[in-house]
């Protein structure tokens, strides 16, 4: 049981992987470290949202993910 970090959309390409596993509990500084400098630089943009356990966080820096939970990094969307 670990925290799964999911990379969506363009972040998936940037990191050259879809998913990163790390040990919980995972907070915001821990996330920035776990994803590596390139993705961390993208997270500086507030338009990149973060969801934890199926909920988008109003304040990303309040992140606390427990083992078994999924964290999703959600860059700006484009559908339709």
């Amino acid at each position: 049981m670990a925290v799964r970090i999911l990379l969506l959309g363009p972040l998936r390409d940037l990191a050259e992987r879809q998913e990163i596993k790390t040990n919980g509990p995972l907070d915001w500084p821990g996330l920035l470290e776990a994803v590596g400098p390139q993705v961390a630089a993208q997270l500086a943009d507030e338009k990149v949202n973060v969801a934890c356990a199926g909920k988008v966080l109003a304040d990303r820096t309040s992140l606390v993910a427990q083992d078994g939970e999924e964290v999703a990094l959600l860059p700006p969307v484009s559908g339709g």
Partner: protein
Amino acid sequence: MSVGEALAAFNAAHGEAGGIASFLGKVRPDGGVRALELTHYEPLTLRGMEELAEAASARFALDGALVWHRIGTMRPGEPIVLVATAARHRRNAFAGVDFLMDHLKSATWLWKRERRVDGWHWIAPRPEDLTDLERWK
């Protein structure tokens, strides 16, 4: 179920509505686009679309709303998105479709990239997509 079948079923389900508006978005073949790929984040995307349909129904007094979005890889000419609304008055049905499309374009958990001759390119929302979205705030 094809686009035509979905619209026919939606129409039949809303026999009492005065009007039904719809929009079908398709992959455009221009700009050398060979394919379009749409990805989503399953735990959020469908729930977001359901909330969006409920918001449109309440705001425009719709009798019903149909909101479909494909994911995966699509080729030029293929459908990507289908939206339909049923309402007593046509202006409400139009506004509902307009609202739903603007939110699917730039406020739904979907990511789009296109394959052109030189490879895949991620598509960022256009400035006008964001302006369109602002109209509803």
